[in-house]
């Protein structure tokens, strides 16, 4: 149960923002076409880490509803026209409406430009709380959400796997760090959290939810004037796994050879 904090006032409708990215499914095979990644056969889905963010937003809204605190969840998505599907899929599990920053020209390609554009959109909504995934599984930069928080001058805690609300404006979160350890922080809103695996499991959309999703509002806005500061100048693909290398010989030799290969060739030890 939420304990009321009598010295804090809230607007009548709290806004929860969720940053959502439309990325190629992690099972996709990545191929190059000329100088770029071939997007023709790729299947795009909501970034898996953003799913945790969406689910947490919906859970938070449900929790606050129990104390008669209405909240509205707004999804923010930057991407080409097709990326609107990410917002629709998010609507199906409980996001209320969305803002689609349309970027067909690939204007925002690095962390800074993406974060700037997202932050500009967020500024129009005055969010009390923003959830995001810890990283996008296409660019793997692990930076945008943190940058958005900074640009909004919102405190943040990233990579959380647990979030407990101790009051309607304060949460105790657990941040995952190296070695399986967790740092625990108490955070007062407004704040931004980025979600790690383990925070929750996104619910499956019910058919009524999918139906309702088709009717929810998506506001399309053009992308702010941003410029990428990091340019991708080329791509290469790692070598295919190829044939297995069977290691022969006496056990002692096999063990030694294996470890040698893992260290020098595979570079995993």
């Amino acid at each position, binding site marked *: 149960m939420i304990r009321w904090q009598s010295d804090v006032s809230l607007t009548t409708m709290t806004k929860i923002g969720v940053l959502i990215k439309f990325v190629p499914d*992690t099972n996709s*095979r*990545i191929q*190059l076409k000329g100088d770029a*990644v071939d997007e023709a056969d790729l299947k795009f889905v909501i970034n898996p880490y953003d799913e945790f963010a969406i689910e947490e937003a919906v859970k938070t809204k449900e929790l606050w509803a129990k104390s008669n605190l209405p909240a509205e969840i707004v999804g923010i998505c930057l991407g080409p026209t097709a990326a609107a599907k990410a917002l629709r899929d998010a609507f199906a599990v409980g996001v209320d409406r969305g803002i689609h920053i349309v970027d067909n020209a690939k204007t925002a390609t690095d*962390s*800074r430009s993406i*974060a700037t554009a997202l932050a500009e959109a967020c500024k129009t909504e005055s969010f009390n709380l923003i959830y995001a995934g810890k990283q996008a*599984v*296409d660019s*793997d*930069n*692990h*930076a945008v959400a*943190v*940058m*958005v*928080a*900074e640009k909004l001058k919102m*405190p*943040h*805690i*990233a*990579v959380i796997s647990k979030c407990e609300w101790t009051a309607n404006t304060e949460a105790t979160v*657990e941040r*995952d*760090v190296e070695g*399986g350890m967790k*740092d*625990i*922080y*108490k*955070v*007062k809103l407004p*704040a931004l959290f980025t979600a790690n*695996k383990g925070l929750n499991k996104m619910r499956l959309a019910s058919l009524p939810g999918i139906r309702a999703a088709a009717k929810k509002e998506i506001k399309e806005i053009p992308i702010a004037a941003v410029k*990428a*500061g990091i*340019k*991708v*100048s*080329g*791509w*290469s693909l*790692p070598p295919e*796994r190829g044939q*297995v290398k*069977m*290691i022969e010989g006496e*056990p*002692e030799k*096999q*063990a*030694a050879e*294996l*470890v040698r290969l893992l*260290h020098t060739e*595979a570079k*995993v*030890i």
Partner: protein
Amino acid sequence: MKKVLIIAEQKKGSLKKASLELLTAAKNDEVHAIIFGSQAKAAADELASKGVKEVFWIKDAKFDHYHPEAFASACEEVIKTLKPDYVIGTASSQGKDLVPKLAARFDGPLASDCVELSIDHAKGKHPFFSGKALADVAFEASTISFATLRPNSLAAGALTGAGKVTETSSNFDFASSPIQYQKSTEATSDRPDLTEAGVIVSGGRSLKTKDNFKILFDLADTLGAAVGASRAAVDEGLAGHDMQVGQTGKTVNPSLYLAFGISGAIQHLAGMRTSKVIVAVNKDPNAPLFQKANYGIVGDLFVLAPLITEECKKQLGK
């Protein structure tokens, strides 16, 4: 010659090797460093001895634990004074949080999690799509640029000359911050979580008893790895369900997956096939996993596992 500020890290007073790798990225530049924590003296000294011109050591014990606002504030002060061209850090838990925040604060471009980085050439390489593609990244001209370097990507380096350590304080107001650090928990086990582990040692039904799994635990401890099991092993009671890797268990994505006595039928494969390097050890030469592995040994896992552990110990200097 650029002016570079590196954000160094220490653990229990020792400088992290990854911080020295940053020196390799900045090998022809004028390097300064910032390091946090009341125990960081030895680390700060080491940096100075390795050619870092000036090491700003934030000594206050409140900086013993990471606090995004506080650390960013302290760095901000140093950056404003120093005016470096580049600010780089390790793509560690802290680095992946602090460096982006600073990049946003100073509106500088950020190249994250580079596996190659050269300040001189203003470029690096960064893996996309969980490592399925490697991008060449280049820094556009900017007043100040930011980057993080993946640990173990470059060799640890050193610069010529020696520098000094400057004890610095920060006037960050912890008390009024909306973020209040509470505590850190120890890991529930010494081993990393299966789903996030970089190295996994996994066993099948051939281990025969729960006790026999010890030989895999030994190897895992040596490698700092997590331990997984096939469904058959879990069914036989050799391992707990939380260790199950596979279709109905956990999906894992380590850099190295060592499978002992696991045949590699599709149900298991579904849970670990994205592993970067797969090693299969099995006495059955027809085990399907050999088709999917990078390296394979046909042999007795009871003999091989301990031998491999020994070899790893030698390799890692343990």
